[in-house]
């Protein structure tokens, strides 16, 4: 039985359909990637799974519980078993790295400070930043901030972790470190991981299964190898990063020649 079961998901912003009847299964213990061009609602999907947004139609079950039918306290209990890594890291900027990782432990457990210290140092050691524990978030690079956020996300030993664009804006070394960490932590802790990304190369390295989203629907799904073999022009354009194809280079609108012949319109 999958850990997350999404059925007939419909979500709209105004009149625009972000999801139009999406079905997704996230298998336990696997790394599942949700990919697609910018603006296709990948981050929105994570917020729907976390119960921060409510769909207009459809269900999202996490570990057998319908997220949007839970009471507030039950939803918060479920969230304690979900980790989420935000694109920006979302570290609390007024406290240092150590206190950021200790934050969920102090909020949700009655552990003595000596034990919290050991746990925090273990988590920071796992992401290679034990010796950066006294730095403030403003003193960290983007890659370091995400690693601290990863240490914080796994502090409560969750059953799953959601990564929102973990590789965006990273230099090759940081990117390699993050790819390695996500893979290693997933295996070592027996987690289920959902990686939302549009970085095809890095995500394909670690994903067991990939869903490709566009226009509110699942365009294609399968293992990275299966997607590479896909006959869909759209999939090939996305995977190979071609500038033109089914997704046009030019924003939809009037013809270029017609536009040039009507210069006063936007003048």
């Amino acid at each position: 039985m999958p850990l997350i079961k999404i059925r007939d998901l419909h979500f709209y912003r105004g009149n625009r359909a972000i999801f139009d009847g999406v079905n997704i299964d996230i298998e336990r213990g696997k790394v599942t990637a949700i990919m697609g061009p910018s603006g296709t609602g990948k981050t929105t999907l994570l917020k729907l799974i976390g119960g921060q947004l409510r769909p207009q139609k459809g269900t999202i079950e996490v570990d057998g519980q319908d997220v949007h039918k839970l009471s507030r306290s039950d939803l918060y209990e479920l969230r304690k078993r979900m980790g989420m890594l935000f694109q920006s890291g979302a570290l609390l900027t007024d406290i240092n790295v150590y206190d950021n990782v200790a934050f969920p432990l102090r909020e949700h457990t009655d552990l003595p400070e000596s034990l919290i210290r050991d746990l925090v140092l273990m988590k920071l050691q796992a992401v290679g930043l034990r010796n950066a524990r006294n730095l403030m978030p403003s003193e960290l690079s983007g890659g370091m901030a995400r690693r601290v956020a990863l240490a914080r996300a796994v502090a409560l030993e969750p059953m799953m972790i959601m990564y929102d664009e973990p590789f965006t804006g990273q230099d090759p070394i940081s990117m390699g470190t993050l790819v390695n960490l996500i893979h290693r932590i997933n295996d070592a802790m027996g987690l289920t991981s959902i990686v939302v990304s549009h970085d095809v190369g890095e995500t394909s390295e670690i994903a067991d299964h990939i869903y490709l989203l566009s226009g509110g629907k699942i365009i294609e799904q399968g293992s990275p190898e299966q997607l590479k073999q896909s006959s869909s022009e759209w999939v090939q354009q996305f995977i190979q990063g071609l500038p033109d194809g089914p997704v046009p280079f030019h924003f939809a609108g009037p013809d270029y020649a017609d536009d040039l012949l009507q210069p006063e319109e936007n003048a």
Partner: protein
Amino acid sequence: MINWIRGLGRWGLGTFERLGRGHLFLMQMMAGVPSLFLRFSLVMQQLFSVGVLSVLIILVSGLFVGMVLGLQGYNTLVDFGAEESLGVLVSLSLVRELGPVVSALLFAGRAGSALTAEVGLMKSTEQLSGMEMMAVDPIRRIIAPRFLAGIISMPLLAAIFSAVGIVGAFLVGHGLLGVDDGAFWSQMQAKTDFYDDIMNGVIKSVVFGFVVTWIALFEGHDAMPTSEGVGRATTRTVVHSAFAILGLDFVLTALMFGDE
């Protein structure tokens, strides 16, 4: 014409929707306050940043307002040979009106804008969302302690403002203009009533603290998560707080002193 009516309708609906959101936000904040008594350290931290860090501007402003009041009051009273009543004039002006109102306006500019910017930036950098996903309610953990700290700080700051203002007026009145110090203090003590004057001033400042902190936190929480959105929210906090303080001051003054 149709567009104008449509625009008016959109503005009206938007305003009422925002008012509704503001009141729901207030209810959530109030619901979070009782649990703070079990974790009062959260409030203590905010008392420092909201209250203690506002003391300097309150001290300096209070001193100068008091000095100006002393100078202006003396020049008016001396025409009637009543300059020895300067202490009464200054204390009643400060305790009833200027202390609560001016310190609330300064509080909105100093602490209110800072609260809006802080909460707005926490929202735009996904810190509030991050907390929600860590199963920590940001309203209880971040917003409610600031709300309570604002309500506690405001009357204390207003009291400091009034006290320093009276000292400023005394320095000018006695030190510069030669008003008798015994008359200054004794008339002030005789004519300033604890319940009618001081407590009514305290009630005003509690109300102002409540409203200013509510506006500041709501604007921050409701801000568009962009730098422009946070900037606009900060401006709205100062403007709306000033309107609310001055409007409520009239209402409260009418209720407290209207039948004298």
